């Protein structure tokens, strides 16, 4: 087919371009602006080049929060993905149980982030919270406001509680779309339950799991509100993930230059990981 060349077509791209400019490019540009300059207010800027970037890249504080961030994300992915699949597998496939389970599963997803944080904060308080008090009564020395391990445990538990449902719902949708003939054929072929899972269910869930992992990676990598309300990044800086650290730097210390540079680095890490992940998944798709 011969494509008609008509430069006027660009005209039709303008509305999208304007929209994207206003909601993404222009706000991002202000960050870029701060990342390369120093300001003392009154709209007076001084060119600093890559100084802030160098400073951030070499700062131990950034390395530490980045490390905490990756550790947190990997732990929650490691728990939520298998747990979500496992729950989806045990959910009923038909009958009254389906809507009941679906509603129960979506409940945590409907709760606002800061409410989740506040809820878990109170729930886990060692003296009055149900979880905290019970653990102490059982003989565990539990105090998430003082002990690093407990703070991590509580933050991870909270995130698992809040977001595993998303993986469950996506996996469940994937499972439901498998034709009964596949299970029947597997039964005839004498496949074990494990073989049915690895040869039929997992491959058929691949697409939804890709989405689930991608969403959970991004959300957990950019997590802010819940740990901020729960631990405030503490004790010390133990649960200060990238976003929390960034806000501390930008609004707490008013180090706008380094904070802007850190934002951009942060943004590029997310972009890079998503791109790598997506490309790998799509390349697998193409090989089939």
């Amino acid at each position, binding site marked *: 087919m011969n494509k008609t060349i008509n430069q006027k077509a660009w005209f039709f791209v303008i509305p999208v371009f304007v929209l994207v400019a206003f909601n993404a490019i222009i706000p991002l540009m202000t960050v870029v602006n701060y990342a390369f300059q120093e300001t003392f207010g009154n709209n007076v800027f001084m060119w600093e080049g890559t100084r802030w970037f160098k400073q951030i890249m070499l700062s131990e504080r950034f390395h530490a929060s980045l490390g905490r961030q990756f550790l947190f994300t990997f732990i929650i992915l490691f728990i939520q993905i298998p747990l979500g699949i496992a729950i989806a597998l045990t959910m009923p496939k038909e009958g009254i149980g389906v809507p009941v389970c679906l509603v129960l599963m979506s409940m945590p997803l409907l709760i606002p982030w800061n409410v989740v944080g506040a809820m878990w904060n109170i729930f886990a308080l060692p003296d009055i919270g149900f979880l905290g008090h019970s653990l102490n009564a059982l003989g565990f020395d539990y105090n998430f406001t003082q002990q690093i391990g407990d703070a991590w445990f509580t933050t991870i538990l909270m995130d698992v509680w809040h977001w595993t449902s998303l993986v469950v719902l996506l996996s469940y949708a994937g499972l439901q779309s498998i034709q009964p*003939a596949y299970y*029947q*054929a597997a039964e*005839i072929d*004498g496949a*074990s339950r494990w073989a049915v899972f690895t040869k039929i269910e997992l*491959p058929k869930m691949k697409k939804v799991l890709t989405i689930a992992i991608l969403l959970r990676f991004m959300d957990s990598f950019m997590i802010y509100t819940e740990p901020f309300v729960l631990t405030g990044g503490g004790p010390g800086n133990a649960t200060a993930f990238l976003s929390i650290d960034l806000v501390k730097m930008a609004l707490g210390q008013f180090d706008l230059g380094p904070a802007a540079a850190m934002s951009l680095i942060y943004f590029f890490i997310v972009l890079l990981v998503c791109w790598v992940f997506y490309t790998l998944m799509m390349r697998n798709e193409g090989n*089939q």
Partner: protein
Amino acid sequence: MAKITLKDLSHSYLKTQSSDTDWAVRNVNIDWNDGGAYALLGPSGCGKTTLLNIISGLINPTKGDILFDDKMVSNLNPVQRNIAQIFQFPVIYDTMTVYDNLAFPLRNREIEEEKIKSKVHEIAEMLELSSTLNNRASGLTADGKQKISLGRGLVRSDVNAIMFDEPLTVIDPHLKWILRSKLKELHQKINRTMIYVTHDQTEALTFADQVVVMHEGQIVQTGTPVDLFEKPKHTFVGYFIGSPGMNLLPCEFKGGEVILNGKKIETHKKVKSNSFSKTEIGVRPEFINFGSEGIPVKVLSVSNTGRHKIVDTQSESGKIKMIAKPNENIPSGSAFLNFKKEYTYVYGDDWIIE
């Protein structure tokens, strides 16, 4: 290898059943002889697939027993029954190669890799899959995928029966014909019981030695293709098989004779009793001739199919179709029809009266 017996088998997908229509399959009694090639023929929704799934063990019947060689298997699963089944739409294991797909049923049964290899190559050869053995199965066309499904059904040599659930639906007509003859050939070679579900009479009649016709959950007739054609035991068999189907005309009994439009009709057997709410005469278009006397009709139209002419006529009791030779002269306007006595049957409430 086994004779399969179904005894008083009924199945319903509902929890409680109030009328006959609540049953997907009802009162099925049938023997499938060892090594037979059977076709299970019937329109969509008549219970063919349900019956097949009951035999293979994918469905537990509501009532009745399944016996293999007179041994109860009602409570055994498909693996224990050792059945192969091929489904209507291709089922393949996406992540595996064609070879692994074909080997899968054998590997699950922990057969030595050497034997698997020779068996898979043999089947692949037969289905013309040899050149794609190392490809990913998910990259194949619908035809190719269904061939894999067929292959997985055929790869085990010790199965009690192989069941096909409309396996050629997704295959294009040319290949369909080839695969069907392959299956027929294979049946002669390995001599397994094969049950082939279809709604296509040509497919059923060419594949099977014995055709089982199902209608509304019941088996209405079992017989060779010739039996079904020459002596349908149920009006459904009469009009479902054959093109055009059997003529069915309402008739009555008087003084021990069958009367159609006030005229005495000679039928293949004398019918005396009449305790039916509906009685009909059935005769196939192939067994009707024009004559100088007989049933008066008006010729409505003639269509020439090349091999023969199909003549539509109108009698007092309804339309009658007949088939004439291509060179036969068709009278226009009024004519008289004669039914061949030995192929004219009487049906009471849809079942043949003998």
